[in-house]
């Protein structure tokens, strides 16, 4: 188990990022339309808005004020910058469809969230002489969250998948093998539960649910649903290596990440520290466009894939999984079969 990263064969360059046009259209067009519409709406309301406008709200109503121009510029500008950052992730590191989905989803989703939030908060203040009398903003926040999730989700879903890219090298592959008879079939399965994620996520879900009921803020129920979905899909990963390749998925079956056997260039066991290597837990983008499904510190399976892609999933006994994947991938090579 070395810490040496996979390297491209000498004399080859990393393939370019595919589907750049699609990523750009799906990330920047929704962002420009939502933020532009918000700016246009606010401009048309200008004469009917109080000065200053309310921009911050506490339990007792509005408690922070700002001039209209700086608030709109800063607010929309911030979300525009975040959208551009998401788009950059997709076109710069998006060799893997998962990377493009995350980048595009963040760009479109954050822009929609910001646009609804800024325009919605100001829409409530139309015709008011004093911004202190702004009505309850909870529906706006709920609407912004829903708009962000829906638009981000739709755009991420619309991202084109990776085209099939079978390996062209004849083998043999690097790394340890598993002795397997010519007729033998084998499957390896591993399952990792992040106790931290279950405890923290489950606790947060219950807490927000209690707040939503206790304080009668129905808008928070959206957050409860989102948190619960996050725990169920993000705290457990089931990894399978078999004749179809590698599959890493949540117990519900989604999210699911697949690597067909003919796209495997190599597999090895490695050690992962989620925070240091991926900046957090769950489905993550690591340095250099590595995609990770990382739930805990420790043993992990790292798979090098065609198209300059690398996938990492934390799982126990990764050495056996890597050996089986290498063995099966080599068996699937045309020349090895020939």
């Amino acid at each position, binding site marked *: 188990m070395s810490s040496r990263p996979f390297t491209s064969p000498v004399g080859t360059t990393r393939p370019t990022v595919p589907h750049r046009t699609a990523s750009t259209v799906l990330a920047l067009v929704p962002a420009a339309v939502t933020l532009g519409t918000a700016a246009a709406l606010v401009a048309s309301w200008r004469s009917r808005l109080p000065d200053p406008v309310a921009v911050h709200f506490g339990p007792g109503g509005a408690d922070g004020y700002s001039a209209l121009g700086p608030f709109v510029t800063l607010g929309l500008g911030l979300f525009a910058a975040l959208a551009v950052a998401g788009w950059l992730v997709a076109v710069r590191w998006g060799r893997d469809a998962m990377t493009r989905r995350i980048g595009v989803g963040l760009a479109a989703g954050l822009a929609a969230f910001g646009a609804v939030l800024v325009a919605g908060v100001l829409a409530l203040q139309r015709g008011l002489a004093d911004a202190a009398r702004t009505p309850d903003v909870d529906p706006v926040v709920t609407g912004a969250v829903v708009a962000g999730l829906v638009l981000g989700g739709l755009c991420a879903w619309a991202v084109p998948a990776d085209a099939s890219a079978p390996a062209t090298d004849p083998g043999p592959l690097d790394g340890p093998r*598993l002795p*397997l*008879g010519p*007729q*033998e*079939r*084998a*499957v*390896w*399965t*591993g*399952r990792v539960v992040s106790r931290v994620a279950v405890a923290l996520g489950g606790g947060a879900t219950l807490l927000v649910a209690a707040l939503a009921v206790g304080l009668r803020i129905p808008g928070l129920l959206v957050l409860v649903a989102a948190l619960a979905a996050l725990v169920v899909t993000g705290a457990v990963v089931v990894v*399978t290596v*078999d*004749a*179809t390749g590698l599959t890493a998925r949540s117990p519900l079956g989604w999210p699911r990440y697949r690597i067909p056997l003919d796209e495997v260039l190599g597999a090895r066991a490695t050690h992962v520290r989620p925070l240091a290597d991926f900046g957090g837990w769950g489905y993550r983008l690591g340095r250099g466009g590595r995609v990770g499904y990382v739930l805990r510190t420790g043993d992990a399976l790292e798979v090098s894939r065609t198209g300059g892609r690398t996938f990492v999933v934390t799982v126990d*006994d990764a050495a*056996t999984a890597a050996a*089986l994947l290498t063995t099966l991938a080599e068996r699937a090579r045309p020349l090895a079969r020939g």
Partner: protein
Amino acid sequence: MLLRIDPGSTEPLFAQLAAQVRAAVLRGELRPGARLPTARDLAASLDVNLHTVLRAYGELRDEGLVELRRGRGAVVAAHAAGDLDPVHAAVAALVSAARARGLAPATTVGLLKDALSQQEDR
């Protein structure tokens, strides 16, 4: 865990599967509460009939090694292995004694099977 089948073997496929899970439980590699892959997933991965896997799991359940739960698949039973330390020690002793005498593995297994069948006959 790793599971493998050899369609070329004379041993039935369900028996091959059951034997591997049994051995993993008895060796302590599969702890009580550990989940086995669902029968459907396992059948798909190994390209065998669902009933082959269900038969293997059913056999393990009858032996008290796993519990089958609707919707949750097979889980290694709480007291599946019991205290097998004396058995593990005796097996280790048997293996080293057989090696010291230069016995082939098949011969050693044959001796063990004979001893077990004599005990059953009594």
